[in-house]
C-alpha cells in the first residue's frame, strides 16, 4: 500500500467514529509518527521474548550444575553471567532500535 492509500484509510476509519474534524486534520506526518510509535512497541516487545527465555535456560542449567558441583560455584556463575550477557545482546539491539524510532524518526 502506498502512503496515500494508508492516509485515506486512516481518515475513513476516524470519520466513521463520528469525528469529522479529527479526520480532516490527519496528515502524512501523523501517519509516520504513529508508525514509528507502533514500530518501537513491536520492536521492544517481540525483541524481549528471545533473550528472556534464553537467559533463563542458561541460568537454569547453571543452577543444575552448581547443585551437582557446589565447589565450582564461582566458575559456573561467571560462565552463566558471560552467557547471559551475550544472550542479552539482541535485547539491547531491540532497545536501541526502539529508542532510535522514538527519538530520531519521530
Amino acid at each position: 500500500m502506498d502512503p496515500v492509500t494508508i492516509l485515506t484509510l486512516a481518515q475513513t476509519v476516524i470519520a466513521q467514529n463520528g469525528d469529522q474534524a479529527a479526520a480532516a486534520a490527519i496528515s502524512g506526518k501523523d501517519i509516520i509518527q504513529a508508525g514509528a510509535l507502533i514500530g518501537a512497541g513491536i520492536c521492544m516487545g517481540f525483541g524481549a521474548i528471545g533473550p528472556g527465555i534464553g537467559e533463563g535456560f542458561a541460568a537454569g542449567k547453571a543452577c543444575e550444575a552448581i547443585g551437582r558441583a557446589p565447589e565450582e560455584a564461582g566458575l559456573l556463575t561467571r560462565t552463566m553471567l558471560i552467557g547471559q550477557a551475550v544472550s542479552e545482546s539482541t535485547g539491547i539491539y531491540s532497545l536501541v532500535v526502539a529508542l532510535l524510532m522514538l527519538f530520531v524518526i519521530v
Partner: protein
Amino acid sequence: MDIAPETWNFIGRFVGAAFALGLGGIGAAVGMGMAAAEANRGMMRQPSRHSDLLRTMLLGQAVGGSPSIFALVVGLLILFLPVNEATSGAVFASTLIGAGLAVGLGCFGSGIGCGLPALAACQGVARNPEKSTALTTTMMIGQALAQSPSIFATIIALMLLFLPIPGVGLASIGIAIGAGISMGASALGPGIGSGMTAGGAVRGQSNWPASRPVTVRTMLIAQAICDTPAIFGMLVAFIMLFTLQDLEPTIIGFSQTFAAAIAVGVGGIGPGIGCGAVGDTSCEATANEPKNDALMLRTMLIGQAVSQSTAIYALIIALVILFVV
C-alpha cells in the same frame, strides 16, 4: 459506510467473548490433559494405588481449571453486560474486546502453568504413594501462586467492564484495547514460568521428601519473581486506566497506547518463561542438596534478575512512549 452504535456493540460482544473463551480455554485444557496423561501412566505402573492417583489428579485438575472459569465468567459478562449509554458504539465495543483479550491471554498462561505441578505430582505419587498428601499440598500451593497472573488479568478485565474509560474517541479505544493487551500478554509468560517453578519443586520433593520445607521456600521466592513481568503489565494497565485523561483523541494517541501495550505485554512473555526455567532447576537442585540452599538461592536470584532485564527495558520503552514522546 457508517456503522451504527448497536452494530458496534454486537461486534464488541462477539469478538470480546470469543477472545476470552477461545484463548482462555486453551491453557486449562492443555494443563488438565497433562495431569490426566501422567495419572494414567502412573496407574499402569501401580494399579493398586489408583485411588491416591485419582485423588491427586482430580485435585490438580480442579485447581488447574479455575483460570478457565475466570475466563467463562468474564466471557458471559461480556456477552450480557448492559450497554453503557454514554459510550455506546466503538468505545463500548473496544472495552469489551480489551476485557476479552486481558482475560483470554492471562488465563492461557496460568492454565498451562497449573498443569505442570499437577503432572509432576501425579508422577511423584505413582513413584511414592505413601507421600501423596504432602506432595498434593505442595502442588496446590504452587498452583495457587501460578494462578496469580490470571487473577490480575481478571481484575483488569472487570475494571475495563465496570469503570469509566478516560479520554474520548480514538484515545478511549486505544486505552481500552491497550490495557487489555498489556495485562493479558504480560500474564502469559509469568503464568507458564510460575508453573514450571512449581513443577520443579514438586518433582524435587517427590525424589527427596526430607527437604520439603527448604524446597517450598525456594519455590515461593522463585514464583514471586516469575510474576514480576505480569506486575509490570498490570502497572501499565493501571496507568492507562487512571492517568491518561488528557491523551490526544487522534491517531497519535491511539498508537501511543497500542504501542506501549505491545511493548510491555509481549515483552513480559520471554522473561516470565525464562525465570520459570531458572526456578524449575533450582528448586529441584535445592531439594537434592538442601545444605547448599543459600548458594542455590543466590545463583537463582542472579539468574532471574538478569533474565528479567528485557522486561525492564520493555517497561521503560512503554513509559517513554506514553509520557516522553
